[in-house]
C-alpha cells in the first residue's frame, strides 16, 4: 500500500507542477461555473421577481394596486386565483404570492383614519434575500397611495370628509386624539379648500404641497407574511446548474492529465522503473487510479465548498458523496482505457479531448440537460457525462430519492469498471 500511496503522491505532485493542468483542472471549472452562473442569475434578476397576485377585493383601489404591481420593474406578475397562486409558489414556479384581501381598497383610500391596507405575502422562508427585496418593493408601491391622495386636492377633500365622519363615529379612539383630530382635520379641510380656490380651474388634480411624505407617520401597507414550504422541483439558483457542469470540466481535466501522465510513463521509460520495482502491475495501476481519483476528489471538494459557502448552492451530503464516488470510478476507468489504447502523449491528449468534449456536449456539460431538445436528451444517454451530471443534480436540486439515484450511480460504476478492466488488461498485454 505504501508504494501505491507513493505513486499517488507523486502524480498529484506532478499535476501541481504543471501550471496548465492546474488551470484546466482547478481554475477553469470554477470560472465556468461562476461565469455562466452569474450570467443566468443576473438575467433572471433583471426580469424581476416572479409573483402570483390574487385580488380578492376586486375594488377600484385594489385594481389600481394590481396595475401598479404590473407596471413595476421589480415584479413579473401573474394574476390568478388564490389556490393557483399558492400552488405556483409551493411548486417553485413563482417566487411569492401576493393576496389582496377583501377590504383592501377601503383601507387603501384611508389616509388619516382606519387601518393601513393589508396584503398577504407568501414566500419560501429560505429565500431571505428575495423576501426582503419583495417587502421593500411593496412598501415603495404602498407609498404611492399617499401620493395619489395628496396629489389631487379634490381627492384630499373627499378623504378629509370621510375621515372626519369616521372620527366622529369612532367609539374606541382616545378622547384626546378625538379632540385633537376633530379640531385639526376641519381646519385642514378649510385650508385645502382655500388653496384649491386659488388654483386656476382644473388645476386641483395637479396637487398641493403639504410637505414631504417622510413626515407622515402612517404605514404605507400592512404586510402579513406567510411562509410557504416550497416543493423543490427546480434548482435553487443558477449555480446549482453550473456547478455540476464545472465539476464535470474539472473531472475531464483530471482524466486528460492522468491519461497523458500514464502514457508519458511509457514514453519516458519510467514505467520500466516501476515495473522493475518489487510491486505488482496491479499496484502500479492502482496507484495511478488512486492518484486520478484523489485529484478528482480534491477538485470536487474545492468546487462544492465554494458553491456552498459563496454561491449558496445546497445539496444532500450523502448523495453528493455517492455521486462523487461513482463519477470518480467512471472517469478513472475512462482514463485508464484511453491511456491503454494510445502510444504517445499527443495521441492520448487528442483522443481523450475529442471524446470527452463530444461526451460533454451531448451530456450536458455545456447546455444544461433540461434545456436540451427531446431528441438530444435521448442521445445524451450514451454519454457518461450525462449520468455524472444527473447524479450531481440528483444530490443538489433534483431531490432524487436513493432509489432514483441508483440509476446514474449504477451506470457510472458499470462504465468505470468495464473501461478500467479493459484498460488495465490492455496495458498488461503490452507490457508482457
Amino acid at each position: 500500500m505504501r508504494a501505491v500511496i507513493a505513486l499517488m503522491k507523486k502524480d498529484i505532485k506532478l499535476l501541481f507542477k504543471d501550471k496548465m493542468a492546474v488551470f484546466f483542472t482547478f481554475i477553469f471549472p470554477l470560472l465556468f461555473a461562476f461565469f455562466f452562473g452569474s450570467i443566468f442569475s443576473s438575467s433572471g434578476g433583471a426580469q424581476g421577481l416572479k409573483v402570483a397576485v390574487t385580488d380578492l377585493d376586486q375594488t377600484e383601489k385594489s385594481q389600481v394596486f394590481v396595475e401598479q404591481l404590473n407596471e413595476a420593474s421589480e415584479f413579473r406578475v401573474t394574476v390568478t386565483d388564490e389556490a393557483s397562486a399558492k400552488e405556483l409558489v409551493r411548486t417553485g414556479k413563482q417566487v411569492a404570492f401576493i393576496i389582496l384581501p377583501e377590504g383592501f381598497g377601503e383601507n387603501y383610500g384611508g389616509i388619516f383614519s382606519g387601518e393601513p391596507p393589508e396584503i398577504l405575502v407568501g414566500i419560501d422562508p429560505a429565500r431571505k434575500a428575495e423576501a426582503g427585496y419583495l417587502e421593500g418593493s411593496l412598501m415603495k408601491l404602498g407609498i404611492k397611495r399617499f401620493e395619489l391622495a395628496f396629489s389631487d386636492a379634490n381627492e384630499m377633500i373627499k378623504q378629509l370628509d370621510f375621515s372626519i365622519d369616521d372620527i366622529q363615529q369612532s367609539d374606541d379612539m382616545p378622547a384626546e386624539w378625538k379632540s385633537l383630530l376633530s379640531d385639526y382635520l376641519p381646519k385642514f379641510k378649510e385650508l385645502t379648500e382655500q388653496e384649491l380656490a386659488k388654483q386656476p380651474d382644473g388645476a386641483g388634480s395637479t396637487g398641493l404641497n403639504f410637505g414631504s411624505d417622510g413626515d407622515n407617520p402612517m404605514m404605507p401597507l400592512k404586510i402579513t407574511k406567510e411562509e410557504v414550504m416550497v416543493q423543490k422541483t427546480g434548482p435553487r439558483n443558477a449555480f446549482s446548474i453550473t456547478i455540476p457542469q464545472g465539476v464535470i470540466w474539472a473531472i475531464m481535466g483530471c482524466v486528460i492529465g492522468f491519461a497523458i501522465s500514464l502514457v508519458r510513463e511509457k514514453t519516458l521509460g519510467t514505467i520500466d522503473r516501476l515495473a522493475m520495482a518489487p510491486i505488482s502491475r496491479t499496484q502500479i495501476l492502482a496507484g495511478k487510479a488512486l492518484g486520478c481519483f484523489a485529484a478528482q476528489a480534491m477538485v470536487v471538494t474545492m468546487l462544492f465548498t465554494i458553491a456552498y459557502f459563496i454561491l449558496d448552492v445546497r445539496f444532500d451530503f450523502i448523495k453528493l458523496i455517492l455521486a462523487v464516488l461513482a463519477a470518480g470510478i467512471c472517469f478513472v476507468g475512462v482514463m485508464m482505457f484511453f491511456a491503454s489504447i494510445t502510444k504517445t502523449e499527443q495521441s492520448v491528449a487528442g483522443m481523450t479531448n475529442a471524446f470527452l468534449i463530444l461526451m460533454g456536449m451531448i451530456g450536458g456539460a455545456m447546455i444544461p440537460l433540461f434545456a436540451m431538445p427531446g431528441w438530444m436528451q435521448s442521445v445524451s444517454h450514451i454519454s457518461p457525462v450525462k449520468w455524472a451530471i444527473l447524479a450531481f443534480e440528483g444530490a443538489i436540486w433534483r431531490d432524487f430519492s436513493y432509489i432514483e439515484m441508483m440509476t446514474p450511480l449504477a451506470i457510472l460504476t458499470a462504465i468505470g469498471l468495464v473501461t478500467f478492466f479493459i484498460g488495465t488488461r490492455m496495458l498488461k498485454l503490452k507490457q508482457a
Partner: protein
Amino acid sequence: MIEVRGISKRYGDLQAVDNLSITIEKGHIFGLLGPNGAGKSTTISMMCGLITPDLGTVQLNGEKPTDKATKHKIGLIPQSIALYEELTALDNLSFFADLYGLSAKTKNERMEWSLQFVGLQDRAKDTVSEYSGGMKRRLNLAASLLHDPEFIFMDEPTAGVDPQSRNKLFESVLELKDLGKTIIYTTHYMEEAEKLCDRVGVVDKGQLLALGTVDELIEQHGGDSSVNISSEQGEESFMTANPVNDLMARLRELTTVDNLSLRRPNLETVFLNLTGKQLRD
C-alpha cells in the same frame, strides 16, 4: 551469478533474440556489444525480468528475476532518462526509494549515498529539467542504486553525455565492481568495453556471435595485424598474423626506413569482423 539458458524472443516476424546463452560470474562486468537493432536491449530486458522470454530461462543466483525477493537485488539503468523532469532530484529519489519499501532512515542514507556517488549532492534540490544531459544520466544511475542492488543492468548508460560525465560514469561503474556488484553493460563504444569489461559478448540479429575476454576475442576474431613501411624502396604494407617476426625479417632486408607503423587488431576490428561493415540505421 547470472545464468541465461537458450532465451528467445520474437515480435511478429522479427526474431529479436534467438537461443542466447550466457553465464556471468558474480562481481564481473559483462559487456554486451552489438549494432543497432541487434537485440541487446531485448536481451537485457529479459535478463532483468522486464520482458518474459518466449523460450529459455534466466536465473539470478538460482532465482527467477521476476520473483519479488529477486527484484530487490536488481537495479536497471534504462537507456532513456527514466526520471520525472518536473520534480527535483530528491523528489525523484524519494519516490523510487518508496517503491522499494525502504525505512525512513535507510531511505535517507541511501539517497545521500547515491547522490554523493554520482557527484550530484550539491544539485539535489534542483528540478531535473535544469540538469545537463550528463547530470541526468548520472541521476538515472543514482535512482537505480537506492536499494543497493546486487545485479546492475546498464543499457547504454553513456549515450549522449560529455567526456567529463562519461569519465565519472566509468569511475562509478568500476567503484560498483569494487563493491562486489555484478554489472551487465550494453554499449556501442568499443573503448568502454575494453576499459571496463571482464568479459564481452557480441550479438547481432539476436544471436550471440562471440563470447570471451577482450584479449580472447581479439585473438579469435581480430584477424591479422597491419604493417606499413616507408623506405628507399617506397611504400609497402602487408597483413600478418605474426607481426613482430615478419616485421623484423623485412627490416633486415632494408638499409634505411623513413616511417614504420604496426596496427594490431582491437575490439572494434573484432566487432566489424563479426557484424560486418554494412550500416545499421
